[in-house]
């Protein structure tokens, strides 16, 4: 169980997270949605310990992340997690299979002889084959994403944090990945947080959906409830409308510019 209470995160003068309260029950997949730049990736990084919240706390299985001190404790904590980076973050000096099995040396005690087989198995799960010996620079964007996903699940973690697992994939592949996330949850009882902009995939994999807006959680609910949400912000987001309470910066700017323009003319 991941329990976040009042998580606040600042970067310099800017406050990105303004008190996130969220609880992810063991075995469920929580999907986080929300506008670009609202701090979804930042929240995931706080959970795994790459960022340290300025206040509030994150407790995983009764352990407060901020209390992890010794290298041993931190290593044990990380062992629980798989993390898919938004940009993949593949090691570009290593081949695909070395990337996928990199964590096994540190996170598991699987003998090295089995690594290649594991790499192929994980690649098959994400719909790739015969790319084991490629370098990341030789892959397409969607392939990189899937290799990164394969790397995140290779050590069979009990928690997986997916940062936009389906962005940049074609519709069929998106569905394959959504199925994979569901399978991991159903069969391996993985507890997961997935950030996505893809509402179709979100409805498919989510046990619950949380909407972030301006550093706070606007609503957390079952997908069916989100679908019929009364909240105007959530409504606008899930329907993907440009008109509504969420003003995109660009729109404001355009509107202002246009009215000035009109004003000058008249």
């Amino acid at each position, binding site marked *: 169980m991941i329990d976040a209470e009042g998580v606040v995160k600042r970067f310099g003068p800017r406050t990105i997270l303004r008190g996130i309260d969220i609880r992810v029950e063991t075995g469920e997949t929580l999907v986080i949605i929300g506008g670009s730049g609202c701090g979804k990736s930042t929240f995931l990084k706080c959970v795994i310990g790459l960022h340290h919240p300025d206040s509030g706390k994150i407790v995983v299985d009764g352990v407060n992340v901020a209390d992890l001190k010794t290298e041993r404790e931190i290593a044990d904590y*990380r062992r629980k997690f798989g993390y898919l*980076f938004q940009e993949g973050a593949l090691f570009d000096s290593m081949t695909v299979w070395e990337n996928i099995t990199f964590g096994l040396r540190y996170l598991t005690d699987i003998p090295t002889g089995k690594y290649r087989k594991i790499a192929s198995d994980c690649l098959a799960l994400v719909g790739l084959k015969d790319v084991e010996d490629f370098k990341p620079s030789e892959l397409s964007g969607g392939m990189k994403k899937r290799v990164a996903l394969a790397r995140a699940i290779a050590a069979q973690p009990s928690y997986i944090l997916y940062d936009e697992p389906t962005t940049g994939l074609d519709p069929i592949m998106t569905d394959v990945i959504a199925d994979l996330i569901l399978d991991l949850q159903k069969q391996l009882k993985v507890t997961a947080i997935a950030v996505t902009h893809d509402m179709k995939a979100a409805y498919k994999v989510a046990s619950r959906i949380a909407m972030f807006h301006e550093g706070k959680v606007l609503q957390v609910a079952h997908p069916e409830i989100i679908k019929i949400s009364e909240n105007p912000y959530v409504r606008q987001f899930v329907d993907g409308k440009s008109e509504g309470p969420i003003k995109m910066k660009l729109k404001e700017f355009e509107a202002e510019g246009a009215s000035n323009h009109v004003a000058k003319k008249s």
Partner: protein
Amino acid sequence: MSGAIHAFGKLILEGAEETGQFSFLVRSTFGWMTSYRIEWRQTLIQMVRVGVESLPVTAMTAFFTGMVLALQTGASSKHFFNEPLFVGTVVAFSLVMELAPVMTAIVVAGRAGAAIAAELGTMKVTEQIDALYTLGTDPIRYLVIPRFIAFMLVLPLLTVASDFTGIFGGYLVAHAKYQIPATVYWHDITNNMEIRHFVHGFLKTFVFAAVVSLVSCFKGVTTRGGAEGVGKATTAAVVISMVLILVLDYFATAVLNAFGIT
């Protein structure tokens, strides 16, 4: 005026913060080295890279340094004494105690140090260092310590190679230009030089190795802001390393002299 004070204060603060972060890196490097398994495979890869990459350049630098030393010494002693005296002595002393350690370290900072800062900087801005962390590896253990150890082992060897190529370069000039026979040149060296002179230069290379590797790694892992940031980090790594080599050379010499290793 207040703008200038503000800027100055900011500079001091940033400097202090960087120094703090740097000492944290140094502390963790030694901490990890004593308490955890060392990545020997990575260390070996780095040793080959630093060594093989740098050897041709450091050797050539030393070769020509030795040659110019011989040329200058021969010319001035000819001017004062009408014959070239102690060419071997001057060449060997200058090289072994000062020039070979310093020049080798500077060349290695320019080649391997820059490469390290650029590589780690790119890894940092593309989140590969964060990825290491999520995959159960400490970036200091996986990236910094192997490079540190590689430098500590390879730079002294490169310096010894420089000692020999430099002395050989000096001999070629002494022989061709001033007709000094090999036996005289060699006697000039062995009659005056003792093992402690060699040790003096040799010990200093460890200081340089530590400085270049740690500064380059530090600049790499603290890189911010895309391709431009990587460029800045690389430049900073090389410039800071070079300046520190020259500054610390003075202090290291002073300390060694105080211990009588001169």
